[in-house]
């Protein structure tokens, strides 16, 4: 296990909903360049942690740091990508009614054409920029083996390709940290390998850090190192696949006491 600098750090993070403690004193550190897995039984607060990191929920208490800089509390979800954090969702969220190509084109931040007036008064500038992004998008689609699907509606893609599309969208912005929520959900087994390969490739080639939440143990064991185990909103243990599988506490937590 190569030890690099910490990229994301959760310090004493708490989150209550009414009387329920969804996250309790979570202290988590994510090392740069890893593919960290986050597992735990239902209701362990995995997705809540994602929502806390990205600012969808306000913290009840505690702090979150990204690259040593305070991320939460304070930042809104739309600022994440500007800080080079990308997040995917549990249920694949693709924009079903626009095309695959456009699903990629929407990702870059601060496009000229995002300002309404540029579309009336600076059309040529918008077009020029758009052409540049199109080229990049086609390259990415090539990398994902989805070139022929560029003009297909995203809603018509099979589950696995939707995951790939999500990766593609992420590649458009080349973030430093990616929060992947259940990359295995709804993906046929054949496709899963492809998704995993792409994730690993991106991790190695572009040095992107991944934080992965997953239900499917096979996926996690195969993909992630290290793996964090979360129970009742608290970090239970941390280790590589083998260690986790043999940890009694983990087995207990999953089977119930």
């Amino acid at each position, binding site marked *: 296990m190569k030890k690099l600098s910490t990229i994301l750090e959760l310090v004493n993070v708490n989150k209550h909903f009414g009387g329920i403690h969804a996250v309790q004193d979570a202290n988590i550190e994510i090392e740069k360049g890893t593919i960290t897995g986050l597992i735990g039984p239902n209701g362990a607060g995995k997705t809540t942690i994602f929502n806390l990191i*990205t600012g*969808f929920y306000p913290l009840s208490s505690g702090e979150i740091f990204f690259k040593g800089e305070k991320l939460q509390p304070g930042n*809104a*979800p*739309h*600022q*994440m*990508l*500007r800080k080079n954090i*990308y*997040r995917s*969702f549990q249920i694949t*969220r*693709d*924009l*079903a*009614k*626009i*095309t695959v*190509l*456009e699903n990629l*084109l*929407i*990702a870059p*931040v601060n*496009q*000229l*054409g*995002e*300002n*309404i007036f540029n*579309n*009336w008064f600076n*059309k040529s500038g*918008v077009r020029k920029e*758009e052409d540049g992004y199109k080229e990049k998008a086609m390259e990415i689609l090539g990398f994902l083996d989805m070139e022929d699907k560029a*003009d*297909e*509606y995203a*809603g*018509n893609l099979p589950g696995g390709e939707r995951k790939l599309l999500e990766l593609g*969208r992420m590649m458009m*912005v080349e973030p430093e940290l990616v929060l992947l929520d259940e990359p295995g959900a709804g993906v046929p087994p054949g496709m899963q390998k492809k998704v995993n390969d792409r994730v690993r490739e991106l991790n190695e080639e572009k040095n992107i850090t991944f934080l992965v939440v997953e239900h499917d143990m096979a996926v996690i064991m195969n993909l992630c190192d290290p793996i964090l185990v979360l129970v009742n909103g608290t970090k239970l243990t941390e280790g590589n696949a083998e260690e986790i599988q043999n940890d009694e506490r983990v087995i207990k937590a999953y089977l119930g006491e």
Partner: protein
Amino acid sequence: MIAYIAALLCMGSVYAIITLGYNLQWGYTGLFNLSVFGLAAAGGYTSVILTGATAGGRLGGYGLPFIIGLVGAAMVSGLLGGLIGMATLHLEFGFFAISTLGLGMTIQIILKNEQWLSNGVWGIGGIHKPLSGFVGNDLSNWVYGILAFLIMLLIFYLLERVVKSPWGRIQMAIKEDEKLTEMLGKKVFSYRFQSLVLGSMIIGIGGAMFAHYQGYINPMSYTDIMMCFLPLLMVVAGGSGNNKGSIVGAFVIWGAWSVSEMVAGYLPISSAKIPHIRTLVVGIVIISLLRWRPTGIIGREQAVSSTAKNKDIIAS
């Protein structure tokens, strides 16, 4: 007959303008705004107050040219749209709908009660159509219809410029998935706000065009059924998120609405019952279409992209 076609052209174009504005809000951004009638009324009254020649004791009588009236209508409706947005945009779908409906009603109630502003229940009459002095009455409907159609086309062109662009793409994305769009670094509130204001400005222009066509307006000229539900139906009929569809939807629905009444007149039923039977049929038609033709009455939902291969979306 020919004159009636001119009338259909006028009303069709007026509704097409309102529908284009509404389509931006609902069809692209997914804002279920139910204050359309209030915004249209605000536009109509603004234009009438600015362009009217006389005003007995109320605000207005500035006698400004028609085009200034339209610009003023767009400004005031846009401003009101912005205020409505600030008050309600943070709410969820249904809550937003109810709140905007209430704000639309508030605009209507103010227009009804504040005599110094809108002449209250008496309404404002003697509104002139532009150019009607030059061409006489027979032609004025045609002139106005063509003018309205041209204004509608201009709005259509300007809208197409922005919706088929990264800006429009973001609006589509917001309609589909607000959270994802937020995650992609787009400030959803700001884009919704822009869509609401721009749409409101267009609706205001539509309301002003309506006022100048009617010749007389009072607060009841802009009712929720005629000025909010009907445009909504037009948007859905034309396929939400489809500007061309909206225009077709506006003309077809208005034509059907207007003509159906004449057809009903030939049924062998007591004339007092006919209007109710007509609304009954309209209701049944709406329900049946949604039940058996859920893909839209005329068009399907269309993407921003013109390059899309397969026009049918399999997934929901």
